[in-house]
């Protein structure tokens, strides 16, 4: 039976890997997800059959309650709320890992002898607990339950380092005498504090990085628990997720031209919600254009690139935007979307938001694919994006945006920016493009403005 279990776990591991591989293309992605699902099912069923499970009551309750909550959330969550949902799920993964490692200790506490198990046990508790509490904070920030602005206090990094140091010292004491359960409890408590203090100084706009990082932690927590249980499927699956999270973290950092250290300790950014609600800035010094003016330009255009930002989703304007896109396409105008890596609130978020509005994915182009095309494009229509098109990122050395790769919107023949005011983006940097001669500022709510554009273009 042990052999069969082992081989089944191997099969599950293969299905996870091939499933992830299939997630690499939109054509095969659904199949890939289904394969990973099958892998998980096999792992669960085999575990239930093989292990000498004496008590099924708790398992059945757990399976039913967990599945019901998971299914309910998955069905009802809004696509805009995807980041906080993923953050929350990461947290549950971390919690599960911690609990499993801890109850494994309760069962076999007296038999733990070698220092190796003590180390993996402490690691599992540490990573799992940090993931859980860190994710709760990330969730609260994204959900607007607490302010998105960084919360900093003096010596924060020092405190975090100190906590980590104490955990290591306690781990050594625990390794010397594994019967001292109180040491483990202190370690868990300290890890909980560490989870909170390490995420509160991170600003709302940096949350994509944090979610990716917590994603990685939740995988590493599972892997660490795998070491405690000597269970290879936990180690393999955990390692895969750990690697995935690290890659996404790197990509997001690169897209903002920030180092991970800077994101984690830099406390950059303003209040997440504040940026949108900022008081209407002085508009008087730039010419205002109406939807009618814009419609005339569109009428003469042959190519349009739309640059969507998170403001588009906040205004719930994706659907009207696609209606507008189709209208332009009917007129024979080439329309494409330029997606900046940090558009949205988590990696790839904007693509999902547009896919939800039925925008075909082959119209969505990555920054590197489309950036050269702006100079041959008649109109760049920017909706709800700001920092990712700010030319200051190219030359203004003292700007927080400096060095961040941006979309070359300023190279298009005409730039249209739909925005409620002239207020700067998260980075707090004024955007010179607003005052450029070829820029048409279309002040107003994104949804309303796009609807007006549809009406005006139709009337032409």
């Amino acid at each position, binding site marked *: 039976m042990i052999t069969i279990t082992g081989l089944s776990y191997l099969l599950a591991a293969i299905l996870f890997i091939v499933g992830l591989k299939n997630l690499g293309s939109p054509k095969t992605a659904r199949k890939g997800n289904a394969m990973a699902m099958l892998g998980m099912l096999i792992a669960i069923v085999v575990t239930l059959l093989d292990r000498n499970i004496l008590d099924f009551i708790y398992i059945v309750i*757990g399976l039913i309650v967990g599945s019901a909550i998971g299914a309910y959330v998955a*069905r009802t969550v809004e696509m805009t709320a995807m980041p906080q949902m993923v953050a929350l799920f990461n947290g549950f993964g971390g919690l599960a890992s911690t609990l499993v490692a801890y109850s494994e200790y309760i069962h076999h506490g007296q038999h733990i002898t070698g220092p190796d198990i003590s180390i993996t046990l402490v690691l599992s508790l540490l990573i799992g607990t940090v993931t859980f509490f860190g994710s709760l904070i990330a969730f609260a920030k994204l959900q607007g339950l607490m302010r998105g602005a960084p919360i900093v206090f003096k010596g924060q990094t020092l405190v975090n380092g100190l906590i980590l140091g104490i955990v290591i010292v306690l781990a050594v004491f625990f390794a010397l005498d594994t019967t001292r359960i109180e040491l483990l409890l202190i370690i868990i408590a300290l890890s909980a504090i560490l989870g909170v203090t390490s995420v509160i100084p991170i600003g709302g706009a940096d949350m994509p990085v944090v979610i990716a990082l917590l994603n990685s932690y939740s995988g590493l927590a599972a892997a660490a628990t795998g070491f405690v249980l000597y269970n290879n499927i936990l180690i393999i699956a955990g390692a895969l997720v750990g690697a995935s999270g690290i890659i996404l973290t790197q990509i997001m950092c690169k897209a903002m031209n920030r180092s991970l250290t800077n994101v984690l300790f830099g406390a950059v950014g303003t209040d997440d919600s504040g940026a949108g609600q900022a008081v209407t800035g002085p508009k008087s010094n730039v010419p205002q254009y109406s939807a009618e003016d814009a419609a005339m330009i569109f009428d003469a255009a042959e190519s349009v690139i739309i640059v969507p930002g998170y403001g588009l989703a906040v205004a719930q304007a994706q659907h009207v935007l696609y209606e507008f896109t189709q209208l332009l396409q009917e007129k024979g105008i080439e329309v494409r979307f330029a997606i900046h890596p940090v558009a949205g609130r988590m990696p790839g978020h904007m693509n999902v938001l547009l896919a939800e509005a039925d925008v075909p994915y082959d119209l969505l182009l990555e920054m590197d694919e489309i950036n050269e095309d702006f100079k041959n494009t008649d109109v760049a229509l920017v909706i709800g994006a700001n920092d990712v098109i700010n030319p200051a990122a190219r030359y203004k050395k003292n700007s927080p945006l400096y060095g961040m790769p941006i979309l070359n919107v300023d190279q298009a023949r005409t730039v249209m920016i739909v925005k409620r005011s002239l207020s700067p983006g998260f980075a707090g940097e004024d955007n010179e493009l607003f005052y450029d001669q070829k820029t048409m500022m279309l002040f107003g709510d994104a949804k309303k403005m796009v609807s007006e554009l549809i009406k005006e273009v139709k009337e032409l």
Partner: protein
Amino acid sequence: MPDMILVALYIFVLAIFVGFEVITKVPPLLHTPLMSGSNAISGITIVGALISAGSGHDQLGKILGMIAVISAMINVVGGFMVTDRMLEMFKKDRNKK
């Protein structure tokens, strides 16, 4: 014992490399489904949780195990379902030749 942990370490490191190879090829278009999907995979702790919850040793262990099963199951079911829901929305342009 040290042998076992060494083997486990080998498996862990090799799996990390496999993960890097496979996931680097996922385009930004699919990064959100990738995250929620890999999130579901990290719910593999369910295997450990089932063992804890069903061990029949002491009450505390079983209850902790049950909470672990619930948490991991939220991850697994929620993660896979929401990933499928998102991927279903990704469609190619029908008008394009």
